[in-house]
């Protein structure tokens, strides 16, 4: 096993004490990621049914976090029926580990994305009707993240912007 292999463990509120020095950087998105995992947003998300994982390297350092949750949105009227979807509410990597390690095979961001997609399949398999779409929100100026998601078969939904932050929505059609 490579020394760059991450481990994934479900996050609990008690883990927040270990995140005192965790920081995803000083950009708007970086600060939002840090605030999300260190503040109350992560707990709110978990209350809504999200699973949140902390990723650690072989030195037991916290490299990042990821989350996956269910949502039930309604189709526009006159249909009005519910659609069950999976979403990645937030993921972040500590700034010390961004772009690490060199080489794509063990890149932390890729390991995290692969893990979240795997968890989305686990979640889908537990539903009566398989979940077709995995969605995520991305800041329009976060070009490296958009590029990463595209490599994982996420496609930008055109003409959709969410909230005052003008965030974009990307969709991934889960494998059968």
């Amino acid at each position, binding site marked *: 096993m490579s020394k760059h*292999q991450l481990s994934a463990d479900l996050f609990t*509120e008690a883990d927040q004490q270990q995140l005192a020095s965790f920081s995803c950087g000083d950009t*708007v998105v970086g600060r939002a990621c840090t605030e999300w995992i260190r503040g109350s947003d992560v707990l709110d998300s978990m209350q809504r049914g999200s699973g949140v*994982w902390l990723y650690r390297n072989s030195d037991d350092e916290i490299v990042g976090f990821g989350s996956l949750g269910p*949502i039930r*949105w*309604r189709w526009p009227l006159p249909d009005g029926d519910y659609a069950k979807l999976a979403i990645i509410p937030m993921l972040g990597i500590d700034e010390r580990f961004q772009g690490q390690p060199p080489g794509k095979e063990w890149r932390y961001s890729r390991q995290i994305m692969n893990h979240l997609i*795997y968890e989305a399949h686990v979640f889908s398999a537990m539903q009566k009707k398989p979940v077709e779409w995995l969605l995520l929100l991305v800041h329009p100026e976060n070009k490296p993240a958009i590029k990463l998601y595209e490599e994982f078969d996420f496609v930008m939904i055109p003409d959709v912007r969410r909230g005052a*932050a003008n965030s974009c929505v990307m*969709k991934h059609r889960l494998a059968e």
Partner: protein
Amino acid sequence: MSTSETSNEAISHAIPFLRFLISMPPRALEEFCHALMECSGQIRADVLQMFEIAEDESLSVDERGHALRTIVDQLHLIPDDEGRFGMDLARSEELAASNFPALAYQVGRMNLQESEFADRLRHLMKTKHITQKELAARIDCTQPAISQMLNRKCRPQRKTLNKIATALAVDVRELWPDLEVSEYLDSVAEFQQDDRIMTEPEAVALRDTSQPRSKLKGQPLPSRKK
């Protein structure tokens, strides 16, 4: 029902309350009125109802005493170590933060944001030679409200920030740089809301089966705890 009937009914409800107020020592009366003004409309209505019970001589002493204790609880009328009544927001935040790490972080951030905002606002007002009174007039509020913001006694709402930014001819981010972070987090929280009706472009995108299914199945990661 006539107006006079309504007034009579209102007065009869108010009599026990007024009788209680008259009987209070001046300092306690001041604290009580302050607490009553700050509480929600629902609590205020409950308190007035409790006064009627407390004054109802047909009820037992226990029942009337219970009503009075409810009023004390609802309005936080138990004085603190320094004899002050009412809820101390800063102290309650401090207490909550000591028990929950997420709240400690949140409270720390909020304090920092408020302090940075106050510093920035003070600096901009000084640079632009604008007094508190002038700024208040420009944004249609009172001078004490501006003073409270400068002394970190209140957290400005988004619309107030926009008004101040316009009044000072600066970008709102100059006053509150974390605004974009808050907006982004709000959009994430809103994205997770169940029962939302999709917009037409979202529905079109999620009904579109021309996008092939991904071949990726992902990979599990080992658990450190296991």
